[in-house]
């Protein structure tokens, strides 16, 4: 089993992801520079948070044109795992690997704090160690995390159970007050139809150590590791 963490100019959560995979997941992991075009050595790639290309034009818009993204599209089409966190989620939406878009937070502020999210679908490769309704405490750090999509897309997301996480209060209630950024229907994370591509705004890689306030993020990495092991059997 091998993980890759893609590094764009301006990525800044790449080392956090690398640290979690090597130390807590305990699996081999490489940094992959965005000029790379061959991902055949990997079972899963993480597109980390940060400000790829300085967020020029729109968050994630220019990263889509990096050479590695063509390889990421092929990789996803093969059913391998692509996990976009924060800026990674924005990039996956811009690249068309996930539907919708992430726009400026409704309150305009950059938000950096711990939030609680509810697991909406336990039947994905990223949540199989969780139960539907499980509440995770995970930090967010973004200015453009306000998920938006048209009505048809939203209906399709609901019908196909592609909404994986929603912002909620500490008891698991999905409320307006617990929505930090104005995201449609409190959406914090979605997957593609095939379930192998996940994008989420909260940072599970920053929630893998009790010292940092929460280790709830480990559940997601544990689920992914179990899925990779199952897929390679």
């Amino acid at each position: 089993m091998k993980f890759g963490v893609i590094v764009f100019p301006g990525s800044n959560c790449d080392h956090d992801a690398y640290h979690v995979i090597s130390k807590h997941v305990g699996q081999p992991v490489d940094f992959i520079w965005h000029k790379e075009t061959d991902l055949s050595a990997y079972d899963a790639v993480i597109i980390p948070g940060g400000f790829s290309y300085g967020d020029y034009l729109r968050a994630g818009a220019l990263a889509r044109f990096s050479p590695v993204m063509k390889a990421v599209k092929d990789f996803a089409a093969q059913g391998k795992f692509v996990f976009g966190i924060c800026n990674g989620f924005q990039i996956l939406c811009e690249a068309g690997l996930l539907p919708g878009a992430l726009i400026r937070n409704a309150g305009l502020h950059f938000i950096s704090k711990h939030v609680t999210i509810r697991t909406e679908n336990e039947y994905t490769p990223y949540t199989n160690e969780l139960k539907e309704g499980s509440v995770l405490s995970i930090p967010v750090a973004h200015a453009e995390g306000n998920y938006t999509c048209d009505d048809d897309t939203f209906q399709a997301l609901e019908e196909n159970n592609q909404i994986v996480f929603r912002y909620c209060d500490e008891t698991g209630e999905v409320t307006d007050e617990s929505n930090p950024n104005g995201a449609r229907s409190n959406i914090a994370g979605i997957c593609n139809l095939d379930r192998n591509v996940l994008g989420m705004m909260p940072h599970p890689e920053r929630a893998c150590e009790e010292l940092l306030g929460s280790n709830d993020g480990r559940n997601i990495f544990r689920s992914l590791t179990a899925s990779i092991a199952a897929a390679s059997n």
Partner: protein
Amino acid sequence: MKAKVFVTLKPSVLDPQGKAIHHSAEQLGFQQITDVRQGKYFELALDESVNETEARAAAERIAADVLANPVIEDYRVEIVQ
């Protein structure tokens, strides 16, 4: 030749930045403004080998693929000599 590209948020997409700008305009004393929507403006300079039809086609393609995100934005192209 120049291609001007105007990118605007779709009417259905909320524009919190436009709202904040609206508020600032009101602070300046303009109370008659009913709405502000923020957009983006690009100028693409093209060399002399390109005719107007080609310039428009190129600008439309660049606008659709890069300058605008069709999920949230519309665009309009103008060609000027």
